[in-house]
């Protein structure tokens, strides 16, 4: 089974949490659906939700909370259901 990836279409800053004090949206290894929010991308002070895009089990995050990201960059791996 081919491994899928979650890619950001936007440049900006990646966050795994809604606010610095909240829990992460999803843990590595969690079951997700296509529209599960896995993080936020902040572009020019506006926040967009990043969804898993496919159902399955979330693998590892390849970027840390608060890291700068580029369009097309892989955020996390995903084993499709």
């Amino acid at each position, binding site marked *: 089974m081919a491994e899928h990836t979650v890619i950001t279409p936007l440049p900006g*800053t990646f966050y795994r949490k809604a606010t610095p004090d909240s829990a992460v949206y999803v843990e590595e290894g969690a079951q997700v659906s296509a529209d599960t929010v896995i993080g936020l991308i902040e572009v*020019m002070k506006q926040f967009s939700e990043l969804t898993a895009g496919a159902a399955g089990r979330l693998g590892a995050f390849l970027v840390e909370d608060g890291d*700068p990201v580029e369009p097309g960059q892989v955020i996390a791996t995903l084993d499709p259901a």
Partner: protein
Amino acid sequence: MTQAIRKLLVANRGEIAVRIIHAAKALGIPTVAACSEADIDSQAARLADEVHILGPSRADKSYLNVEALLGALQVTGANAVHPGYGFLSENADFAEAVLAAGAIFVGPSPQTIRRMGDKAEARRTAQEAGVPVVPGSPGELFDVDSALEAAESVGYPLLIKASAGGGGRGIRLAENAQQLSEEFPRSQREAQAAFGNGAVYLERFISKARHIEVQVLGDGKNAVHLFERECSLQRRRQKIFEEAPSPALNQQQRETLCASAVRLTEALGYTGAGTLEYLYDDVTGEFFFIEMNTRIQVEHPVSELITGIDLVQAMLRIAGGEPLGLRQSDIQLNGAALQMRLNAEDPSRDFFPSPGQVDTLIWPQGEGVRVDSHLYQGYRVPPYYDSLLAKLIVHGSDRAQALARARLAVEQTTLTGMASTLSLHGELLQQPWLHSADFHTGTLETWLAERRSGGNA
């Protein structure tokens, strides 16, 4: 003891960092661009005499990092900091830390920043200086009879607001005493349910408010005003198009408004450039102080163009210990000026951010045209910060000429490589209500909504 500015640390980025560097150069002051790793290739870094890297791209690790900025002062030997707008510009603790490090903070004292940053305290200070504030009930109200009594002095229409409220919850509108009697108990119940506290108060509702603000300059003893700016055209409380003077005021109103701003500024013993924001009621002609911004503002150029005074140079001179050197009678209102903000946002996609690389860039030229921008051909606009790309500013002998020059300026501008709000300004300048200045703080959003549903985007 006052000390002269020997070397200036510019603690900001974008167009305002460029603006500050130009002002410092004009005064012969060497500059240090304190910037993030994302801004190493910025226009400010290219123009400044020195560059100091504060930290990574994220603002909290660079432009908001007080330790890094204090370190920059030490390493570069700069003895003054200009904070620009946003970031740490209205942070009293930062101003205090700069002073404690033996350097000059280009702005008012930490005490003044703190005082005007506290809304209740600012309101109290304004009242003491005889500056009108939005009428409200003196305290919390618990029954309909006392509400009706308080409403006599507040005036209708009014809002019933939850003391513990926020985010618009628990707010109800009453146009008259009848409605107040009906709505008051509902507000109390709503406030109790939403916030666990049924206390409410009354505040005058201004249905068609304009946002008008007065530019002031002070040297700690004396203060002057540079007339007012009209900033009613806003989207999500962000100003998009500004002008000076306000087309809504007559000479008498202008004098009264600006004199009130000078009174408050002198009462504060204010040092530097500041702005007092007011709501102006188009229906009654009343104005009410809402808050003071203790820094330079994005829209300061329109005030510069109608008065011929360079505000950023004035800030640096005053911070270096020079007296104001201006009397009110020295400052004449000359013509009209407009400012259009170009943001890296796509008006056809609900203003979605659009960072990118500048491809073709042609700025407008001609009489009465000024562009404040940090863009250059090939520049990559980073996604980490504010979306402001440039300010197109025009001046004319009157408002009609300024509007005509604004149209030409928009037509002459070419910016490719990213979406921007340039086209929006082209459309805006065709609106009859803009030409007749028939607008208030809700007008732009109403127009944008109609434009969307009309499908002529």
